[in-house]
């Protein structure tokens, strides 16, 4: 049921980065009025394809046509002019400019050569409204917004540019469930308006809900294109990873009750007006999930535990001993043994231009140095071991991490802390932008770490993850823990209702204060 002539066609596109073939003679056809999903493992070449399409990088070979005419965009601005608009995996918002300025960055309305700010603001407000983000103030600075809000701004910005083809490269990866719903409505509306949409995501259920057709990439090659719904999830995943796939979260044995004090315990932890009276305990061998809408204090809780926030109230106990954690230096010390996998790997997790080796070393100098002098052999041994253990796909430990695919970068962030053998691991949405295969690896890894005695606190925006991975889930709302779900009580329904702080249909379970 091919509906229309292709709006855009790519033929034989290839791109090499040094020895790495990022894209190998790829073809693609995009049609108006349809949502075309692109799937593939981390590093399959999806983002590379997009970058070629919108002129961020030039292809080594191959040609592209738009509306029958051959095109080769020299820079993103040229693609924008032609109506090929992309929302990148790496956000392209300008932190110090206002939301309105960002939305209208390439084609602002002008009067007498100056930007017509009242009009710009109106257009921006409309675009935000259309993207379902009318709550964002157009004058707010982008850098003051949380990540999920920023992504909504990205979407509004794309809409304001009157796209013919709209490409979303993991644009929903940082969004909360409620935002995703809104964005989906927008996308479906755009489809009926005749836009061509390219949709990249690692979330299978999103693709199932949205896509009209799917293309699978593996190792830089297009493997298959098929109409949505003609293949099962398992089949699709097998196409992606090229081998058999067993979908399963690892077993949840739960912590052994050995009578030892909890590895981490909070007593009425508070900070400014963002954290309120938080108490819980986390045992060795246990994985606790943090749920709730984005921005309800989960990030602050992790930062508070990691010694980043000043003037915290309440007590933190490690192995039953009251401790003061004043800095990440203290947090990672032998005595405390904390690790934090931060939210934004680009700015908080990695030194992008530095090598994998340097990044893996940064948190664990003490493991292979004496009196500040690095023992190179020991360092190399530990790093090689870690790369093998976590299966980081890199040609060499001396490669810059910026050259790795998003998923592998995320693995580096996790691995860098595992180098330090932490006893308590705090994770801030660690599987964002990670393909299903790798996600499974990370889940197994977390469970293995827990089984080996680590205590894990996992914040996630992905309900499946909380359900599949965690022994207990603490749902936060407005800086406080509103509800604790244990074992089989952890259901999507329970998570959603408590996240919204609404009465569940089974009032017995709700703990409304």
């Amino acid at each position, binding site marked *: 049921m091919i509906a229309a002539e292709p709006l855009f066609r790519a033929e034989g596109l290839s791109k090499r980065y040094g020895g790495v073939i990022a894209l190998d003679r790829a073809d693609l056809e995009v049609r108006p009025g349809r949502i075309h999903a692109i799937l593939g493992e981390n590093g399959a070449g999806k983002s590379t394809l997009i970058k070629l399409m919108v002129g961020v990088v030039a292809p080594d070979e191959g040609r592209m046509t738009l509306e029958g005419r051959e095109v080769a965009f020299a820079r993103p601005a040229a693609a924008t002019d032609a109506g090929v608009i992309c929302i990148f995996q790496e956000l392209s918002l300008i932190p110090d400019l206002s939301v309105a300025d960002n939305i209208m960055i390439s084609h602002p309305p002008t009067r007498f050569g100056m930007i017509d700010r009242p009009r710009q603001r109106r257009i921006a407000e409309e675009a935000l409204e259309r993207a379902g983000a009318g709550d964002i103030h157009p004058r707010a600075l982008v850098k003051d917004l949380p990540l999920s809000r920023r992504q909504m701004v990205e979407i509004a910005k794309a809409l304001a540019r009157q796209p013919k083809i709209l490409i979303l490269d993991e644009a929903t990866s940082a969004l909360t469930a409620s935002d995703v719903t809104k964005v989906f409505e927008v996308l479906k509306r755009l489809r009926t308006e005749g836009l061509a949409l390219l949709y990249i995501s690692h979330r299978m259920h999103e693709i199932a809900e949205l896509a009209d057709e799917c293309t699978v990439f593996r190792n830089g090659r297009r493997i298959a294109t098929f109409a949505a719904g003609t293949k099962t999830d398992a089949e699709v995943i097998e196409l992606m990873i090229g081998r058999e796939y067993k979908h399963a979260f690892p077993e949840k044995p739960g912590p052994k009750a050995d009578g030892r004090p909890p590895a981490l315990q909070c007593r009425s932890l508070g900070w400014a007006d963002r954290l309120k009276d938080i108490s819980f305990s986390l045992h060795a061998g246990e994985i606790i999930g943090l749920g709730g809408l984005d921005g309800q204090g989960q990030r602050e809780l992790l930062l508070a535990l*990691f010694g*980043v926030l000043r003037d915290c109230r309440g007590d933190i106990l490690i192995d039953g001993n009251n401790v003061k954690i004043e*800095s*990440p*230096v203290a*947090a*990672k010390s032998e005595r405390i043994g904390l690790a*934090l996998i*931060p939210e934004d790997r680009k*700015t*908080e*997790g*990695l*030194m*992008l*231009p*530095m090598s994998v080796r*340097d990044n893996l*070393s*940064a*948190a664990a*100098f003490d493991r292979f*140095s004496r009196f*500040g*002098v*690095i023992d*190179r052999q020991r360092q190399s041994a530990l790093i090689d071991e870690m790369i093998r253990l976590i299966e980081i796909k890199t040609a060499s430990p001396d490669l810059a991490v910026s050259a790795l695919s998003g998923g592998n970068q995320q693995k580096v962030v996790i691995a*860098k802390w595992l180098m330090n053998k932490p006893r308590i691991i705090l994770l801030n949405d660690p599987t964002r932008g990670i393909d299903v295969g790798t996600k499974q690896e990370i889940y197994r890894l977390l469970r293995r770490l827990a089984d080996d005695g680590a205590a894990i606190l996992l914040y996630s925006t992905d309900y499946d993850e909380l359900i599949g991975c965690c022994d207990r889930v603490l749902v936060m709302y407005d800086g406080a823990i509103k509800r604790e779900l244990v074992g089989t009580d952890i259901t999507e329904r329970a998570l959603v209702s408590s996240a919204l702080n609404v009465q569940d249909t089974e009032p017995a379970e709700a703990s409304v204060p």
Partner: protein
Amino acid sequence: MSDATASRSVQRGTAMLRRLDPAVAASFGCILLLLLLGSLYSRSFLSPEYLLQQLKVASFLGVIATGMMLVILLGQIDLSVPWVVTSGAMMACAVAAHGTIGAVIAIPCGILCGAAIGIVNGIGVAYLRIPSMIITLATNAVAQGLMVAYTGGFAPQDAASRAMRYLATGNAVPGLPNAVLVWAVVGAAAIWMLSRTTFGRSIYAIGNREQAAYLSGIDTRRVTMLAFALSGALSAFGGVLLAGYASKAAQSMGDAYLLPSIAAVVLGGTHILGGRGSYLGTVAGVVLITLLQSILSVMQISEAGRQLIYGAVIILMLLIYGRQKT
């Protein structure tokens, strides 16, 4: 030497060659080019005496640029170089006037003064988070103020001690000026520190992304402060050497070292925003700047022409190899 070790050392050699930054290689190429061009003007630019003398003079800038490089690697800058150089020199000379004990502790005292100013810079940058460009400008003004008040008010001794003279102008190894040896030692220490110590790697990490370094549990503030302290100490040490070379300390002897030290570091391929750069590049940059200044100095053209050529040659060399990747 067995075959195995020989081939291993060959391997290591080629590995080093492969690792050698093309920019660094190109900058050494530029040095040769400069000398060749100079020799068209006068044969003596190729004479060993002249070259050694240039190395000797370069070593003062080299020591100072080492400190500057540490700070630039952090993504900061140190504009307090001029008066830290002077303070180091003047304080060392002043201490040297106090008998035998004075003579012994003169050099360490000078260096410590520089380190102290560096620590003030470091506290400003790391703990108060004042942009380095401005806090170092301020400490430079304060150091100048202190030195002016000191010279005017305390009738200071400003003759260099014998040890200082020996360090700057002596020849412990025949034919090789001590200053060059000193620079070699400082340079070797810097290379070792930057590549083999946690401090050095932390500097690169902070220069690339301070926030990520902080969240990795690196004590970013201490590292930053230490780097500034080292920069101050090395500037002051440069001043001590200069005082030894001139056999005395004088006001404003550091003025001629600020822009050249920045230029040398950046000319050597270190990224001004921090995080990237190798010490060999800095060595090349220092030698380049020194040679260029020297060759221009003795060419009989007007000062105006010299300035024009100086600027043009720097830009030309950067265009040859110093372009940023986009």
